[in-house]
């Protein structure tokens, strides 16, 4: 066999190798994309239901006998009036045949308990309503909401179903009277956590996340950039700086819960900062984010071509001028990208925050860095571990909100990289 024959023979083999390799790659990508689609579609399928809530139309009679118990028609009376009874009576007037007390209680559970307060506020605002009968759409309770959104659940055997056959019959009667509708779930976007799924919202934890990330950013960005610039540009290369470098790289790989324990031990037990507060959460996450930003800073400083440094130094710029006038501006897109990636890591982090008490059940939207609050991933975790069926959808919707924020932040990172990266 001459050489050309040999080459031809081996070439066939190499070509086969190449196509095999291509197929492996495609298989890998296909697998990844498939799993991603499955995850995303299951989350969206479940989560989209949480963006709607169910309302029931009722003729509400603001019975003066119930509202003004003392007959002196004061505001105090309205505040402490038994609006639960008003709702119960309204339901009863739609189902006049029901008289059993137990059944009536079940019936009144069709309407969310939050509507008692809403009706009270409505009457407070407009006292003329007392004695009148008006038609209102009232928020349904979570179990009615779940059944209404998932018709297949009606087919489940009664003992496993959320509501009994009797309640299902009532629901069907309401349906046939066209007294039920689905509307945009505003609560989800304006409220904090609640024990009742139909009243729970993501806003509280979103604000908590915002406060926490703000603290993380203002702490970690300047410290990390200063450290990165010093290590990369100014520090002498010796055993000591090598040691620091190795440790920073190790720090980036430390499990995040360790940072939570550190925060618990130092920020809470030694410094006595408030528990569950975004300021402490932000400090813990800043510790966690520092190595990420330092590494990104150093990498993007390294990527600035030495010719730019030489040009500046050759012109008689000092080290400081070289760095601040040329090197840092050129590496800023890389640094910002690294920062945003660190931030989105921090946004998705829950373990260290559990350690410092940000896992509490918080019903108020936090108003400052010192208020007790929770964050998005922890809120998702809390909802996931709650028994009520309505939280399943809320969990998925929470994941959707979290993912949208991650996508938004990563999108900003990509935009910064594309827009401000200088070519030379």
């Amino acid at each position, binding site marked *: 066999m001459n050489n050309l024959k040999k080459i031809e023979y081996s070439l066939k083999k190499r070509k086969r190798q190449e196509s095999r390799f291509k197929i492996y790659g495609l298989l890998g990508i296909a697998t990844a994309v498939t799993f991603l689609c499955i995850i995303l579609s299951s989350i969206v399928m479940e989560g989209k239901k949480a963006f709607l809530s169910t309302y029931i139309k009722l003729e509400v009679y603001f019975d003066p006998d119930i509202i003004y118990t003392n007959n002196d028609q004061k505001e105090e009376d309205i505040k402490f009036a038994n609006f639960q009874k008003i709702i119960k009576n309204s339901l009863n007037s739609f189902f006049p045949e029901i008289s059993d007390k137990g059944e009536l209680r079940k019936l009144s559970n069709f309407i969310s308990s939050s509507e008692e307060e809403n009706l009270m506020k409505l009457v407070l605002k407009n006292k003329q309503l007392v004695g009148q009968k008006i038609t209102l759409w009232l928020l349904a309770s979570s179990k009615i909401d779940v059944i209404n959104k998932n018709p297949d659940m009606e087919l489940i055997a009664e003992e496993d179903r959320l509501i009994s056959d009797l309640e299902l019959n009532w629901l069907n009667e309401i349906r046939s009277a066209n007294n039920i509708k689905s509307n945009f779930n505003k609560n989800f976007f304006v409220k904090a956590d609640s024990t009742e799924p139909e009243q729970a919202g993501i806003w509280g934890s979103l604000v908590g996340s915002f406060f926490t990330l703000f603290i993380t950013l203002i702490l970690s960005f300047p410290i990390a950039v200063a450290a990165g610039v010093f290590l990369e540009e100014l520090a002498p*290369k010796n055993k000591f700086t090598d040691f620091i470098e190795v440790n920073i790289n190790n720090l980036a790989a430390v499990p995040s819960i360790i940072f939570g324990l550190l925060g618990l031990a130092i920020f809470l037990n030694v410094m006595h900062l408030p528990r569950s507060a975004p300021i402490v959460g932000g400090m813990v996450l800043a510790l966690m984010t520092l190595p990420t930003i330092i590494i990104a800073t150093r990498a993007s400083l390294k990527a600035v071509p030495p*010719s*730019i*440094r030489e*040009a500046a130094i*050759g*012109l*008689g710029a*000092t080290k400081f001028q070289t760095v601040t006038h040329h090197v840092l501006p050129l590496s800023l897109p890389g640094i910002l990208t690294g920062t945003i990636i660190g931030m989105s890591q921090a946004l998705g982090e829950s373990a260290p925050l559990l350690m410092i008490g940000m896992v509490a059940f918080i019903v108020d939207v936090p108003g400052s860095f010192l208020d007790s609050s929770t964050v998005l991933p922890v809120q998702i975790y809390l909802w996931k571990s709650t028994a009520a069926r309505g939280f399943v959808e809320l969990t998925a919707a929470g994941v959707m909100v979290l993912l949208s924020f991650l996508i938004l932040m990563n999108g900003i990172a990509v935009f910064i990289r594309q827009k401000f990266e200088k*070519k030379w």
Partner: protein
Amino acid sequence: MTEKIKIKSKNVNVYYGQKKALDKINLEIPTNKVTALIGPSGCGKSTFLRCINRMNDTIDICRIEGKIIVDEEDIYSTEVDPVLLRAKIGMVFQKPNPFPKSIFDNVAYGPKIHGIVNSNDELEELVIYSLKKAGLYGEVKDRLNDTGTSLSGGQQQRLCIARAIAISPQIILMDEPCSALDPIATAIIEELIDELAKNFTIVIVTHSMQQAARVSQQTAFFHMGSLIEVGRTDQIFSTPSQKKTQDYITGKIG
């Protein structure tokens, strides 16, 4: 030679870590003349050039012995500030390296950081003067706000020369300034070097012997870290006294 001497090196040894890169270099460079440093790759000519403005200070493992005297002053003595020295000794690099800023800002950068100018008008005047000196003004006068990196390679290199002369140095070091350029751009730069030699002392490292012959008045031949021979350019290229020089310029070693 009767010329005034600008730079004088005395027994200069340079080490990169354990490796000796330059061995006992004694070289005198005359004022307002072009001195070419030639020799095969790795012979130490660039290293020597970078010793003159202490660019080698930025390399941690680089160590220098001996004296380099510029205007009667040892530049490696402790009183000399390398930043001040580099304001006096400009440098043009092998690869054109304009800042990714506008053409104007590229030239204005040096005067700005050294506080040479007092007003914006003065700065503009200086930038235009420097660009004219570098023979670039005519080509870029309408687009001074374009980035320096948008120019062609030869224009970029002339921009770097304009940038260097804007702080009016006395010496310009050129490290193979034409190695990345085509013959036409090279010819323009060579003409420019001739012109600049009236006002500046120029030291140029080059791989092209034709270039050394064309632009320089004095040539120094380096080989394996040693200075083999130095003399008037016409003499070096016609009647070199050393066999190695003869071999190099005729292409036998290199």
